[in-house]
């Protein structure tokens, strides 16, 4: 089948583009090298929908951050992935940082960002009693919010697929050929996928994908960020996302109340050579906890339950690279570092416009359904509602993950919605994300995956590839 558009890469950017294109009567395919979407940088980040005043004026980042920010309410309304505008506080810890607050306030106002306010100490401590007594003042930004970034990817792709987009996972694009009439042929292990237009949303590998058709000329440098998740004991310690005053290199190390209410601290920012280097380090942990303790002294390493690292795809010049290339029909969407998540919906619209300019005819898809059925998040429901559901389906009454109170029914729904791995279940339902980190529920999730997908336990993986969990007694049977 000849596709109108092939999207390379199923991070939040590729998924958002796929969904935006599904509004039109087009044949669209998304090719993702991992076994599920969102398993690249898009699941390993801070999950903040930035307020809109961070990125400098005159950059694509600045423009799309604010444009993106304003699109999240509508997106959430349609897809129900969980989004809250909880606000952000940028703290000045000494008098000489006051001009920094003022700079960001002005930068935001010029762009049209609303709800920016300087708070004095008294106001800060009234609203956020856990913040250090050393704070001098803060810039409050009401437009900031948080999401679970992986859930955003899953629901974007689910919506796109319902509206006709094809998804090919385990499909790394290894080369791109072009024949006489300009049709691209994307080479994957499963065969060649022909398409008239290609969007390169390959994240860390977007430089390599661009080079496959000679539309390169830039390179991507991975900048690593380590993040540490804290026990839910500290739930509610702060409500806003807490920032220090940023430096030119990074927004600094933050205290992030995640959408689920638990706290996360990080990220660090260090360039690494290897695009696969997702290691965390003793040094990183030290740096993170030392930094956040200056802002919120009640936080300690003792409450850490898990850690991870993500890689920002930083292009030369630090800005996003979005646009048509010398190769007609091949569009780059590269260097999408922070605030890439925030900007994703706006980036997707920008890509739609670019494809139109490139000559792709777009007719509305008459069957387009923007809404997804509301997903049940059992733990968050009022008790009467929980009781009703448990009455209706006993699988709601069976708690699969006790730390996060995830019912077996939700795990089943996640598998039916496309989860094929333990991480796929975990990031869709939170099962295994709590304080026991899957110690109790892993085997149960495995049993359910095995039964639903009709595969043996030994074929179940953490996140695809060789990440098997268990093996048989006989040598050589490891999946």
């Amino acid at each position, binding site marked *: 089948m000849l596709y109108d558009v092939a999207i390379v890469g199923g991070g939040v950017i590729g998924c958002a583009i796929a969904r935006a294109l599904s509004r039109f009567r087009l044949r669209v395919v998304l090719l993702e090298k991992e076994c599920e979407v969102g398993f690249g940088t898009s699941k390993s980040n801070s999950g903040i929908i930035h307020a809109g005043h961070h990125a400098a004026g005159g950059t694509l980042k600045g423009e799309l951050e604010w444009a993106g920010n304003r699109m999240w309410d509508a997106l959430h309304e349609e897809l129900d992935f969980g989004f809250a505008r909880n606000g952000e506080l940028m703290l000045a810890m000494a008098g000489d940082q006051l001009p920094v607050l003022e700079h960001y306030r002005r930068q935001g106002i010029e762009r049209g960002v609303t709800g920016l306010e300087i708070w004095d100490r008294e106001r800060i401590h009234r609203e956020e009693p856990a913040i250090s007594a050393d704070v001098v003042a803060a810039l409050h930004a009401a437009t900031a919010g948080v999401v679970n970034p992986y859930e955003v990817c899953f629901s974007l792709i689910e919506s796109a697929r319902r509206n006709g987009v094809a998804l090919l996972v385990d499909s790394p694009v290894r080369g791109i050929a072009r024949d006489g009439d300009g049709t691209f042929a994307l080479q994957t292990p499963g065969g060649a996928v022909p398409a008239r237009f290609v969007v390169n949303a390959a994240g860390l590998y977007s430089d390599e994908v661009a080079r496959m058709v000679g539309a390169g000329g830039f390179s991507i440098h991975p900048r690593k960020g380590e993040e540490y998740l804290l026990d839910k004991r500290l739930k509610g310690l702060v409500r806003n996302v807490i920032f220090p005053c940023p430096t030119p290199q990074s927004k600094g190390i933050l205290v992030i109340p995640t959408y689920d209410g638990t706290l996360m601290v990080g990220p660090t920012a260090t360039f690494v050579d290897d695009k696969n280097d997702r290691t965390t380090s003793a040094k990183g942990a030290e740096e993170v906890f030392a930094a956040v303790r200056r802002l919120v002294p009640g936080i300690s390493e003792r409450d*850490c339950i898990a850690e991870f690292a993500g890689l920002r795809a930083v292009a030369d010049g630090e800005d996003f690279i979005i646009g048509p290339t010398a190769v007609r029909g091949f569009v780059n969407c590269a260097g999408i570092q922070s605030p890439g998540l925030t900007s994703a919906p706006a980036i997707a619209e920008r890509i739609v416009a670019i494809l139109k300019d490139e000559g792709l005819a777009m007719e509305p898809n008459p069957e387009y359904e923007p809404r997804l059925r509301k997903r049940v998040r059992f733990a968050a429901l009022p008790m009467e509602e929980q009781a009703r559901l448990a*009455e209706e389906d006993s699988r709601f009454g069976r708690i699969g993950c006790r730390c996060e109170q995830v019912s077996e029914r939700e795990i089943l729904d996640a598998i039916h919605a496309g989860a094929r791995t333990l991480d796929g279940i975990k990031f869709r339902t939170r099962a295994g994300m709590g304080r026991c980190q899957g110690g109790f529920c892993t085997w149960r999730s495995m049993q359910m995956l095995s039964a639903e997908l009709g595969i043996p336990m030994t074929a179940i993986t953490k996140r695809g590839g060789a990440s098997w969990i268990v093996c048989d007694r006989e040598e050589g049977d490891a999946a």
Partner: protein
Amino acid sequence: MITPEVRQLAPRYDVVVSGAGPAGMAAAVGARERGAERILLIDREREAGGILWQCIHHGFGLHHFGEELTGPEYAERCLRQVTDGGIDVLTDTYVYDISPDRTLTLMSGSHGMRQVRAGAVVLAMGARERTRGAIRIPGERPAGVLTAGLAQKFVNMMGLLPGRRVVILGSGDIGLIMARRLTLEGVEVLGVFEIMPYANGLNRNIVQCLHDFDIPLSLSTTVVDIRGRERVEGVTVAPVDQALRPDMSRAHDIACDTVLLSIGLIPENELSRRIDLRLDPVTSGPVVNSTMETSIGGVFACGNVVHIHDLVDFVSQESLLAGRAAGDYVTGRRPPADNIRLLPGDNVAYCVPHTLSTDREHVVYMRVRKPMEKCTIRFGDVFSVKVRYVFPAEMVNITMKPKFLENFHGDSLRVDVVQR
């Protein structure tokens, strides 16, 4: 196996026990002994018995049943006492919430969401294992890093192996047991690495599970890096100095596909927090008096939810006491209130119970902070015992007879473990 099914849930019970492991089973039996009539024993698994089913090795029961049993045999004995006592067992049910007036909200696979009122509640939810995040091992995050207890479940309950070349971090008892178990399954166990200068498991397990199988135990050594993008490919281990800082100049790599963690247990106190029980920051369990009653009257706690035990026998004994006290509570018998507080002093991490009464005999359970040889355990200046050695890994239990306290008039008693 015996799983008596509760067909009809009553709105009110004399005693409700949350958790049907060895602690909960003994507590239910204890409550029955003291005349509690309607007793409900709840567990979220489909079978009562808790972790015992997966502990298929020997070594249980010597103190409590007077003979050596396997985990499942021990569980069956307890379960028989439960059924003989006519106690209602409700499995596949999760205690979702609890209020200080002792109303429990249950979420049950078979009954849906239900509420029951209890004259007394016994919390016996056990413990969970510490995980990688809790000690922040640097490196990659591949599959193949798991707790020893989960590995035990895979091997003993599901007939699957967690890997083929295994490194064990931490010398807790479950890790030691699994070192032997995996070796018997033909898995290569490359070594057990313990960051402390002494082992964290029982001596008998070190001998029977490691020495007898030539599995090396490296003390003052830890894992400083985990490698492998998808599945574990190797670890780096390094010796540590006295401040537990790794000496990277003496680090070396080990190729393996699995890292088992046996780095300690944490009492499962989700429910205790819901009703704001007073918790002991050292044990992470509720503060209890000499009847195992918590800071809220009518709410008792026992077993690993209070403090981590190394032998199930002591769990049963402590829990029997808690259950009897719960039975007394609902039948209107109240023992005299405690009048002495125990204060952990030199080389004492904690004591359970936290308070005593001078009118009765008590068993005091305690743990030391560091190993010591030829020492004396002193309770103020009223009572002392000589012991050959103490280890943090081995719980000390001491029987306090009322006569020791006859002439004691203070209200707190300091407990020290000192060199002779």
